[in-house]
């Protein structure tokens, strides 16, 4: 994830099920989120779900600017999850 660990407080850590966090009070982008790990219907795979709530400085304008520069959290999260899948399935991110 693009969020930095040192600015987070882990609020839930249930092994193999869920990790949740909340940003520290002085974070640049205040955010909170959770990752859930769910068995897939095939009985072999794992589905990874991320819920992220954030408060971009600058409101709607700030979000549009961030999106333009490819730094909007939703986009970053999509890319990060894709890379996580690559690492888990193939061992590395193809370049």
């Amino acid at each position: 994830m693009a969020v930095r660990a040192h600015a987070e407080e882990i609020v839930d850590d249930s092994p193999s099920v869920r990790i949740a966090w909340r940003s520290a009070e002085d974070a640049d982008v205040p955010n909170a989120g959770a990752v859930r790990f769910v068995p897939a219907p095939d009985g072999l795979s794992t589905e990874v779900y991320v819920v992220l709530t954030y408060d971009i400085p600058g409101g709607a304008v700030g979000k549009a600017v961030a999106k333009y520069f490819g730094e909007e959290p939703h986009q970053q999260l999509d890319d990060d999850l894709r890379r996580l899948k690559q690492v888990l399935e193939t061992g590395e991110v193809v370049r």
Partner: protein
Amino acid sequence: MRANTWAGRNKVEVRDVPDPRILNSRDAIVRITSTAICGSDLHLVDGYVPTMQDGDVMGHEFMGEVVEVGSGVSADKLRVGDRVVVPFPIACGACAACAAELYSCCENSNPNAGIAEKMFGHPVAGIFGYSHLTGGFAGGQAQYARVPFADVNPLKVESGLTDEQVLFLSDILPTGYMGAEMCDIQPSDVVAVWGAGPVGQFAMDSARVLGAAKVIAIDKEPYRLQIAERAGHTPVNFEEVDVRSRLLELTGGQGPDKCIDAVGLEATHGSAHIAAYDRVKQAVRSETERPHALRQAILSCRSGGVVSVIGVYGGLLDKFPAGAWMNRSLTLRTGQCHVQRYMKPLLQRIERGEIDPTRIITHILPLDEAERGFEIFKEKQDNCEP
């Protein structure tokens, strides 16, 4: 090294480019001994595939000798010195698509998966030399190429077959074969193939190998129809006859049982007003395809038949005959070829002499003459004959 590069619409240029190097641990570097120009390279040069950039190294059909392997490639899979044919889709071998042998839909090999996802709904595999939509990987019309997931993709060729006999295992022979395989051919079947270029010719040969009773070749280039006829297929020249009427005559009024579109998005058409309609729509970018062959295949196919599409489409098309498709119980099957699925069995068919891939070769040129090669292919010059 020298490489043939995309230099803007309607232009390729052989230039000096940096040598490829190992970027991932499962990469290999291949010194290329033979490569080919694919019909789909013409779509890139004609500007119908988005996200090409000046300087992109072209080519997705190549073979050669392994000169370097990454630390993650085990020696039992691939070694320096191995002679390999490289399949055009890059597959990781580990995702759900690869597990289902849908290699051209690999979920992990396209660094630009996000762009492909916006365009196609879901991402597709990386492909060598085939735009940034499919990863921006440098292609094989070059002296060397980097091959990712080299422990999964390349086919080792250990028998004494020539480059000309095995090169087309990289794309067009498996593509033609998959086009025929998707038809689920029965012994009494008449199979019609739109497009008698290299892929179409291989689709025809494959249909024959898979047991079709009669194979029909549809094109307008006399030399292509002659090549098909020499191989035992029935030619139909769409500039001389009405295709649908001729197909009815050849099939007792029923239409072909199975129809293969080996043309794709840049079809030409005997009917001037329909051709003009699609050309105008393409020019103003409100349609990316000229799907005449697909439309005609759907309208011509016998009720309950299969229309198998291996010609390349990239975006959106107009006037899709959904009524014919639905009301006459047609099955539409398609896909970029899952080359890795077919390489070994087709290599065996070549070794047994059942398929002769060399029969479609017309020109052999040095790399530095790639520009002339593209011109000959695009303009169908000299009957594409040396």
